[in-house]
């Protein structure tokens, strides 16, 4: 990922070369053709707490937009990883399954979660945020909201 595609908003890195699901903080990076990589942004990780373990659907599993494709455990709380798109799992990042720290350390790079082939049609991509100005405004508003509610530190 090119350095210039990452900006820092309110102390959190935001990669501008990909799309985001606004509520779940999942990102989708288009790799060419209908092949995408999916991960979680640093704000989503921060609001999850100290990551302990995660599990992901296996290769060839079907992804459905807004439905879980795995589970993330932080501080004894197990919650769903929600797919931003519809498609089929092509690859699973075993490094993050073995060590969830990888996700915290490099959420836009080595901490990716799965790769997928998009389903027919838009597969949910058009519902994701992608315009850099819109992304920056969304991220800043989320951070402000989380700080106001004490979800993340000032």
């Amino acid at each position, binding site marked *: 990922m090119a350095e210039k595609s990452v900006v820092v908003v309110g102390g959190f890195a935001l990669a501008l070369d990909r799309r985001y699901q606004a509520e779940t903080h999942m990102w989708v990076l288009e790799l060419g053709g209908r092949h995408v990589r999916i991960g979680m942004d640093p704000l989503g990780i921060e*609001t*999850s*707490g*100290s*990551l*302990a*373990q*995660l*599990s992901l659907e296996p290769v060839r599993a079907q992804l459905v937009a807004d439905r879980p494709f795995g*589970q993330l*455990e*932080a*501080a*004894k*709380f*197990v*919650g*769903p990883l929600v797919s931003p798109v519809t498609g089929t799992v092509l690859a699973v990042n075993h490094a993050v*399954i073995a*060590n*969830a*720290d990888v996700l915290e350390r490099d959420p836009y790079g080595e901490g990716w979660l799965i790769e997928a082939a998009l389903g027919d049609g838009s597969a949910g991509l058009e519902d994701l945020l992608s315009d850099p100005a819109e992304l920056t405004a969304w991220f800043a508003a989320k951070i402000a909201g*989380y700080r106001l*509610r*004490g*979800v*993340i530190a000032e």
Partner: protein
Amino acid sequence: MAEPLRVIDFGVSSPLRSQTLWHAVAYGVSAGAPATLSFVRPAAPYVCLGYHRNMDEVDTDYCRANGLPVFRRMVGGGPVYLDSNQLFFQICVRVESLPPGRHQAMRTLLEPAVAAFRALGVPAALDAGGEICVEGKKICGHGAGQIEDAVIVCGNLIEQFDHERAARVLAMAEATQREETLALMRRFVGSTPVDPGAFRSTMTASYRDALSLGGREEEGALTGLEHEALVELDERFTSRPWLDGPRPPSVGSVAPRVRQVKVRAGVCTFAVEGHGALVTAGVVDGVLERVHLFDGALNGSRQRAEHALVGVPVNDAARVLSGFGDPGRRLAALLASLEPARL
């Protein structure tokens, strides 16, 4: 007017049902049933694994020989020993009623339990690690999970705690780790023998008031959908794929072999063995307590190295060990295999 808090007392249930009943409630709340506080006491002892944990963390031979079933829950945390001296409670609400951060969500759902303990004369507090404690001792185990659109937090009133069995059901190859685990359990896990009837009524009032549920509660029962979910859960929780869990099994044959046991937040033991060397230790708030080392080449310096490590932060232990020559460096290398998130 807001819906009242639904309260379901399941009474005494089989070990399996003491798990599946409240999981069924979560499916019901997700589908539109009101926020629910439930209680259940297991009729017999058993072992329960957190959602992501591997079965090899449990001494299944011991459990089988002693008639202890093992189940896997859909909420987090480690393997735990449960018995009829524990009254379980579960609070289940819809996900949108909670703050967005998990830490805040957990606090929202645990603080009423703390208030209830206090109202009963137990000076409980929610510590920085999110544990319900009295003077540093965990008095209530808990776990949480989002099941469809419901979030459930479960906990227990520990009337008596069988420390020996709680340590014995865990798989640990090293006797020194088992001894240290038992010692730390005795030190950091305690019981609060309050009247269970008073506990139920005080918890009900506390959750009703804290969650702004119209100031009312209603005795309830499972809905039709929850009964259907219960039948499915009974089957699922006893199936081999579910017991095996969602993560690949540990690869025990690859050195180094690591076993970490968490006693409570901030308190754990570990044993790391590989290439003829072994380190076992107890850790309290990130600092090493009793340490046992084995490396054939340490010779007379073993005790000196063990003493040098006591009081040292785990993160700094490799540096201290590196002062003990090649065997020290071998032992230091083993520590790199520890999972920081489980220390």
